[in-house]
């Protein structure tokens, strides 16, 4: 299937400055691995060291969050649009007496 992946602004420098990339894939997982094969520098921003999508990376197929579909097994149809949408998180150093992250 020919599908389109929309690249969010912060990742465009790692994807040849393109707003979107067209590629062939039958599932979301295939599309994302095709994308990171083509643009290796994207990988560490999308996946953690265990090879799982980072928690703040959200993936939609035609505006449906893949977490509520079949995740990376979600099947694609010709002309589908996959969007990578950031969520933003952070915070102050933890003052917890039990330690936590600083």
């Amino acid at each position: 299937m020919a599908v389109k992946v929309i690249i969010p602004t912060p990742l465009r420098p790692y994807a040849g400055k393109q707003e979107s990339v067209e590629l062939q894939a039958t599932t979301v997982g295939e599309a994302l691995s095709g994308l990171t094969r083509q643009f290796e520098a994207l990988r560490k921003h999308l996946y953690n060291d265990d090879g799982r999508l980072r928690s703040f990376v959200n993936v939609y197929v035609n505006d449906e969050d893949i977490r509520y579909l079949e995740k990376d097994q979600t099947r694609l149809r010709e002309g589908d649009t996959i969007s990578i949408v950031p969520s933003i998180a952070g915070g102050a150093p933890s003052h917890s007496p039990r330690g936590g992250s600083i």
Partner: protein
Amino acid sequence: MSAPPLKIREDLVSKIQAHGGETYPHECCGALLGRDGGGLREVLGLLPLSNRRDDSPRNRFEVTPEDVRLAEKEARGREWELVGWYHSHPDAPARPSEYDREHAWPWYSYVIVSIEKGTARDMTSWRLQDDRAAYDSEPVEIVRSSASISSD
């Protein structure tokens, strides 16, 4: 490679500081809207947002993908870009935490304002390095409001 400065008008700095004071002792957060290009990045407007981390709002903030899309739409509507994010560190220094780094996106400017006992102190800005290993400090250039740098 050191980043070029982030330009921001002083009235917008005051708004960020006020937002941090209002939500103290909880963290505030919001979007930085403006222009980027030609080695220059300037903040021309803000979109204050609600902190979605109800469970730990004193040392965490979160912006949902829906709010990110809202911020992008708001920026596009003014022919600007979503260039970054601000958040407060209540009673903590204006430096990114390890948690900030783990959750950061590259390219965006991350402005942090320290709020000490309800009063705004330092404000800094940071950009994540390409390899995600650390943040680079991004110098902040505060522009006087009267010397308006935009038509808006």
